[in-house]
């Protein structure tokens, strides 16, 4: 099932002064894959994510998306490759309506008529139809997350990068999000950064574990949970 490599990092490093947030990471993502990045706080997964999306310019190394060298590019250049991005803290247009938020995403890629129908479909698909007219800034955290997911979906990206999509959601919302992610994965390759093991089990994918800026292990969830090193970094059994 492994096709083409669509995201590749070569010796990617991001240092902040003396702190090696990401250190010489070689990472490959194959087409149609759904990959989760996990790791304890400070493991470097969010920094790695920001290097992929152009929000940070890496200290060294390269990010290649398909044939495009994305290293040090502007975020909009990465997005224009057809990459949908959801940030860790919901990044939405707070002063605008739910509908306007989604429309702004759809209209970037489609003409006015198609954008309109795509916005309507997306709102329906994410069950945001009833609150379409409300200002996003007034919504609950979980709903704001969904508006952001709606913006990602409305762009119909082929590569989707999600940073903690289920953070701060109720159990029911988390389940719906997992379902949505599986659905998006039918048409798009995905990277999901997440802490929540429960959630990763729900979307059942291949997992890359980050630890101290490097990749510790890369395998299925079952192998990873059985691995003593992973337990060690998560539970801190290094000094018994």
């Amino acid at each position: 099932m492994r096709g083409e490599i669509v995201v590749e990092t070569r010796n990617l490093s991001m240092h902040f002064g003396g702190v090696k947030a990401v250190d010489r990471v070689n990472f490959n993502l194959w087409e149609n894959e759904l990959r989760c990045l996990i790791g304890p706080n400070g493991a470097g997964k969010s920094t790695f994510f920001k290097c992929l999306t152009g929000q940070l310019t890496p200290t060294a190394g390269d990010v290649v998306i398909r044939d495009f060298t994305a290293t040090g590019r502007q975020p909009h250049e990465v997005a224009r490759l057809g990459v949908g991005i959801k940030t860790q803290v919901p990044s939405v247009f707070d002063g605008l309506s739910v509908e306007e938020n989604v429309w702004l995403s759809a209209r970037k890629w489609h003409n006015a008529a198609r954008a309109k129908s795509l916005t309507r479909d997306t709102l329906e698909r994410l069950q945001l139809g009833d609150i379409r007219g409300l200002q996003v800034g007034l919504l609950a955290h979980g709903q704001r997350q969904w508006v952001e997911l709606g913006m990602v979906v409305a762009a119909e990206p082929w590569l989707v990068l999600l940073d903690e999509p289920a953070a701060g959601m109720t159990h029911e919302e988390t389940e719906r999000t997992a379902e949505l992610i599986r659905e998006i994965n039918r048409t798009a390759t995905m990277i999901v950064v997440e802490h929540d093991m429960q959630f990763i089990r729900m979307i059942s994918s291949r997992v890359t574990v980050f630890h101290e800026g490097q990749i510790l292990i890369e395998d299925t969830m079952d192998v990873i949970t059985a691995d003593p090193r992973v337990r060690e970094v998560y539970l801190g059994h290094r000094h018994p």
Partner: protein
Amino acid sequence: MTWGRENRWRVAVVLIGLAFTLFAPGVLQLFTIINLTTAIALAILALSLALIWGYGGILCFGQTAFFGIGAYAYTIAAINFGGSTWAVLVAVLAAAAFAAIIGYFVFYGRVSDVYMAVITLTVTLILYNLLRRTSGPEYKIGSALLGGFNGITSPPLNLPWAPYSMLFPQHVFYVAMIALIAAYVFSAWLVQTHFGRVSVAVRENELRAELLGYDIRFYKLALFTIGGALAGLGGIFFANGVGRVTPDMFNLYSSALAIIWVIVGGRGTLVGPVLGSFALFYLIGWLGTQNTVNINLVLGIILIIFVLVVPRGLLPTLVRWWDAGRDRRAMQRRELKLRRRRGTRAAEATHEG
């Protein structure tokens, strides 16, 4: 739908503006009409700032720089060309080009919002000091002497391609009013387009706009340049209303005043700052004749009151009150109907019983 309502509101604004244009010269004295032309020029400046700050979120503390450049460029070009036809175009283009140059460095250099305000303010003050020092015969562009502190006498507008048919003050008033209405219609149209909606999105959240694939630098630069062009257009009418251009157009007082109009009128609306500019123009004029209080003191107090008590500005607050009142009235009507129905039902019940 809100769009429908907003458009109806816009049509109403245009109709009121047209009615004012038609009837004002018949009712008002010539002096007032000439004075109004200056007020209209300032209103166009207010509109340009309403567009880039209120909609685009670009806090430009030196919008008067483009206004002044428009006025100077108009005057210098009209003197050199011996007519205003091309001078009008030169004024708008010069202001737009100047805005584009500053905007390019600020936006493509990713200078933050606060510095944007500082840089634009500095630029206008540099122009102020520069032009003040241009007295003397050696400072001239073509046949136009810059005149230092005293500035340059501006030739009035003439009919297109007829330099000897100069417009009378009331005709300049008509042209200025039509320019203001046209600038308003253009701005109102612009904020509804895809471009305008993205500009608002950039104001709301730059990162998100970028992550959707929009090049925010381009959107800010384009909007800023359009704002510069509009301010330059206003400058033309200022030169006509006052009859001269002076370095004072670039001073700190004028720059601050433009910001106050927008704060008082309401950010995020186009009509609010225009009304704010008219109101303050007449307030300042009236206070000037009274000679009892310091004008700057009054302006300062107005600014403080608005920032603390009416931070949204006059127009958005009034609209809000109106909406709240309408909702309350609707609720009362509904309650009344309900009570009446309950009343009849009770009456029926007693009847049956």
